[in-house]
């Protein structure tokens, strides 16, 4: 009887973990299966794909799909008079994502530092604004945003879109705030006694101490902006990014670009840079980020 109870207890301990493991494993396998399947299709001819949509190509591998996708990955501008190719799109993506990620991270970091380290009342108000804005939906402001950007002369410019993205609203402010509020004050106090000013303390002590966090947030933001096609589509129409190019390529119905094998090769071309970034910074990206606190 005792051993039966033990067995029940053991399975109550193990069974939920096994179920969770199986579910997570299914998601894990699905993503890698999809990526490998995509890779296999991108190397097939249309005939090979039609004959067998699963598995790597039997016979010849068609690396030219990548070359063709690269050539056809164009976005027409000004009624088709100008075509923006993939290299230029990568360039625009880099500008949009690097600038956007840098300014957005910097503004979140600076605002969090000021509000966490100085005891002025405005800091509490800013913190409350962030918390309220997170849960206070403003729906349908896109038309207004487009009109205001045009009015301010910020529409369709990198400066404008960086300015728009350089907001402290969002969860990363809270993450920075928690980091600065929890950091020991003794180093900055010692520097202050040695005559260091506020700017020097921020640049030489606080920023380097939060450097890892800054870098992690910036990479996450960079990836987010790199993948974002909807914002550049609306606010940066003359500078199509690679993600927008993919959107255009996906829905392009010209004969050759309509081949699934080429579209999938195009998708792999877009996924590759982020995949490389992910492999390089994997530990940092899937490391531990904390949003709020835990209960004391």
């Amino acid at each position, binding site marked *: 009887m005792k051993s039966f109870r033990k067995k029940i207890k053991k399975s109550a301990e193990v069974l939920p973990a096994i179920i969770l493991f199986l579910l*997570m494993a299914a*998601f894990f396998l699905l*993503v890698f299966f999809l990526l490998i399947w995509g890779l296999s299709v991108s190397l097939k001819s249309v005939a090979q794909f039609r004959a067998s*949509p699963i598995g790597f190509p039997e016979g010849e591998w068609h690396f030219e799909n990548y070359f063709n996708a690269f050539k056809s990955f164009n976005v027409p501008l000004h009624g088709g008079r100008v075509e923006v190719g993939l290299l230029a799109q990568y360039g625009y993506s880099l500008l949009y994502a690097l600038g956007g990620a840098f300014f957005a991270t910097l503004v979140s970091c600076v605002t969090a530092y000021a509000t966490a380290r100085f005891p002025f009342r405005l800091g509490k108000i800013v913190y409350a604004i962030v918390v309220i804005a997170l849960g206070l939906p403003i729906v349908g402001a896109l038309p207004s945003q487009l009109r205001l950007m045009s009015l301010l002369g910020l529409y369709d410019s990198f400066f404008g879109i960086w300015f728009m993205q350089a907001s402290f609203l969002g969860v990363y402010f809270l993450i920075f705030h928690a980091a600065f509020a929890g950091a020991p004050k003794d180093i900055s106090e010692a520097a202050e006694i040695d005559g260091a000013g506020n700017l020097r303390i921020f640049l030489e002590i606080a920023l380097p101490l939060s450097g890892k966090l800054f870098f992690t947030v910036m990479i996450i933001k960079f990836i987010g902006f790199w993948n974002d096609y909807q914002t550049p589509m609306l606010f940066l129409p003359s500078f199509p990014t690679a993600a927008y190019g993919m959107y255009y390529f996906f829905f392009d119905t010209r004969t050759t670009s309509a081949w699934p094998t080429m579209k999938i090769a195009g998708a792999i071309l877009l996924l590759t840079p982020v995949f490389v970034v992910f492999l390089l910074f994997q530990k940092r990206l899937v490391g*531990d980020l904390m949003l709020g606190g835990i209960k004391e």
Partner: protein
Amino acid sequence: MHTKKRNDLIFYSAMLAFPLLQFGIFYIAVNVNSLVMAFERYDYTTGAISFAGFGQFRQAFYFLFRSPELSAAWKNTLLLFVVSLFGDGLGVLFSYYIAKEKPLANLLKIGIVLPTLLSAIAMAVLFKYFGERAFPALFHTEEGLFSGNAVLPVLLFYHVWMGLGTSVLVLSGTMSAIPKSLSEEAELDGCTFMKEFFCITLPMIYPTLVTFLVIDIAGIFVGQMGLYHFYADDADPALFTFGYYLFREARNATLAEYPVLAAMGALFTLVAAPLALFSKKLLLRLGPSAD
């Protein structure tokens, strides 16, 4: 001391000047302007803007409740919200598995987080062709995943799948910060895996969980269910959510059509904002105790 306070104040003001200016323009001005636009009428021939009273709201009401194009949007928006909550629940459980450092936890975490980090449009291309071409061949069926009755559940699954990474990334980090001693004590007291989850982890991370739930509620009318990735402007109205509809209309609208969209947005805000704030209060009040 007085000089120090003055210097601090100057530095503090300098640090916050740009963020507050940005906030003033892109949050306050944009949203106030959106509200103002909801009461405007734009004459396309003359370019004149005039006061429209509640005319745009009447039109917005008509679209929301009478337009055949939006007849399925209520149901789909609600369904998407419920499924998002389910996704959060799944994210919490997966995060718990990872935070407890169970077998292969870190490897599995990579598989969960990766889709969130990869390009949504590129993943949609792969998933759509896989669903349309490979799935029927793999399972010997006539219909693919993007035809017939399968489409809506497939889109909902895709939404959950792509969103799991964000919650796992943040929640597993929060759970890892729970002192190990608590869990060790619980184990000594004979707590099982799930009992520890319900009695220690869940109460401890409750504030973060509330934030996630409130973000879900706040985004109820914004969720697009990935429709734009899969269909661009041509999704079947039977699949519409309000988030998709608003984005699609804003992208294609003329200046004359902006005000009715702004009115629609204001109506949604009128529903979602109090709901989000009330839910937050209620959830925090009803939350479990960590004692």
